[in-house]
């Protein structure tokens, strides 16, 4: 009669016994939208490494969504052990609103806690018919652009800041010329998609525009997927787009995963992981891997946000807030 209850109890007993016997450990990585394949590959590599190093078997769960949504979820109690984001501001929020990590989180790992980085590049159609080589080509009357909206996507903000960096280098202190350049550039944009994937679809599937402005990694991925149909142009001056990572102090303590979380993030800097990351078209710091992939990633000047706009907080306030610089420039057209 009550065999099913017995069955349940027995099942639970077996499960808990298993947990006690083997060193089976769990880690939750909260990450951004388009990093699914990347971390699926990295997790396999890390599991092997960790098994060899400690003898423990690790199960890694992945959560992917827009990184601002992820940050909100973590503040509201999604107990992720580590975050691997594409926006510095979304990690800062974990300290400011959640008090989950210390303020100096970026100092805890090398290169501002950014194991890999990327920059903004252009994808142009086969043969580069409009002869687009640098930022000043983008404001020509005969050129139409596709980019994600800086209002709604980090991707678009990066492109905006990259263009701003170029204008500052070119026009120096001439604020009016800098502003006019940015206004002209925004005026050449035919479609502002809400996110990076949408912009890619507009350019590829709908065939709109002469150049797609997005992450270099995305541009290279597309060029790989459609061989011979597109060309990649990396401008001489562009923006340093960091991909920050950190462990969540509050939750790793609760979950008892501090060593595992730190190991997971530190291993991202190892040579084998850096090679894997470069394979996914991200730029890396490791010297050996850098040399191997030098054809892929031409040497360009990459400006960090601190040089272009002071800081992320400042950039958000002056440029992207409602009524900010972006809104003013778009009204000029």
């Amino acid at each position, binding site marked *: 009669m009550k065999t099913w209850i017995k069955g349940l109890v027995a099942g639970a007993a077996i499960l808990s016994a298993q947990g006690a016997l083997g060193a089976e450990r769990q880690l*939750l990585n909260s990450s951004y*939208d*388009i990093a*699914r*394949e990347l971390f699926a590959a990295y997790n396999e590599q890390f599991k092997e490494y960790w098994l060899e190093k400690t003898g423990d078997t690790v199960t890694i*769960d*992945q*959560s*992917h*969504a827009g990184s601002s949504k992820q940050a909100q*979820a973590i*503040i*509201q*109690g*999604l*107990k992720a052990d580590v975050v691997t984001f594409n926006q510095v501001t979304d990690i800062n929020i974990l300290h400011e609103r*959640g008090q989950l990590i210390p303020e100096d989180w970026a100092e805890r790992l090398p290169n501002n806690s950014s194991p890999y980085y990327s920059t903004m590049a252009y994808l142009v159609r086969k043969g580069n018919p409009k002869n687009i080589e640098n930022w000043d080509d983008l404001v020509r009357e005969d050129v139409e652009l596709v980019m994600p909206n800086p209002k709604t996507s980090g991707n678009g903000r990066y492109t905006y800041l990259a263009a701003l960096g170029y204008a500052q280098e070119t026009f120096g202190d001439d604020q009016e010329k800098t502003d006019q350049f940015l206004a002209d550039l925004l005026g050449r944009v035919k479609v502002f998609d809400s996110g990076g*994937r949408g912009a890619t679809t507009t350019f590829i599937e709908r065939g709109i525009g002469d150049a797609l402005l997005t992450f270099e990694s995305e541009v290279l991925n597309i060029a790989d997927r459609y061989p011979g149909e597109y060309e990649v142009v990396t401008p001489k001056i562009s923006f340093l787009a960091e991909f920050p990572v950190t462990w969540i102090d509050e939750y790793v303590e609760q979950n008892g995963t501090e060593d595992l979380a730190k190991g997971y993030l530190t291993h991202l800097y190892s040579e084998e992981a850096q090679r894997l990351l470069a394979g996914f078209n991200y730029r890396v710091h490791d010297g050996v891997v850098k040399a191997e992939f030098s054809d892929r990633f031409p040497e360009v000047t990459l400006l960090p946000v601190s040089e272009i706009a002071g800081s992320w907080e400042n950039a958000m306030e002056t440029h992207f807030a409602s009524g900010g610089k972006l809104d003013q420039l778009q009204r000029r057209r």
Partner: protein
Amino acid sequence: MKYQSHHRVGDGPWVRRTLVLLTVLLATLFLAIPLILIFSQALGAGWGVMISNITDRYTLHAIGLTLFVALLTVPLNLVFGVALAWLVTRFHFPGRKLLITLIDIPFAVSPVVAGLLYLLLYGRNGWLGSWLGEYDVQLMFSWPGIVMVTVFVTCPFVARELIPLMQQQGSEEEEAAVTLGASGWRLFRKVTLPNIKWALIYGVVLTNARAVGEFGAVSVVSGNIRGQTNTLPLHVELLYQDYNIAGAFAAASLLAAIAVLTLAIKGVAEWRQARLMANDRPDRKLQ
């Protein structure tokens, strides 16, 4: 002006044909073609690919989780809906009208808002969430949270189906049963239930369909952990964003199949109910 009552709008053959054609056209464009498209896209790369897409570890987990959530939600809302409908149609008390209005809140509120409300209440910084956190109880970003918002979003369906019917039927039959000495449970089983059976099944079918398909509210409280808190509708979005179009449509075709199956069950239930009623009353057959 004189009104010609024997000539109605729509009597003319052209009006009738145009209306029929228009309805068929719209139904084809907006209902049939999308449904067909889901299955044809899912099968675009052949049965083998579709089956391997569906038997993918994470898709299987999403199917399991979605069915599990529906399995908890439907009985809960069945009991809640019947109790509520019984209460507001059989008793008069102050605040009754207000209660009837309150039932509709989940319909009026956008599911995303509903999800956010639960998150703000039961999340780590929420009123109840911070208290629950002290006892290490986590509701949001795990299956209990998904069940909670699904219960909220689907709770009006059963009650909304029952209330008009029970109001219309009145309580004479039940009063008669009470005077004949029926106990509460027997009264419900023998008198009330047979009368409301059809509406009840319909309410359950709607509840189930919505519980399986709910996206907005679940998306807010899920945490999107693949293999843990990813329901089937969320999994469809995830696969789509991964450029895995065939996989997304394979998962979507499962949802569509559940919807079609649900409608089939509803059809069978209706038919059985009609037959049951005819058998119950042999006197009517004689007429």
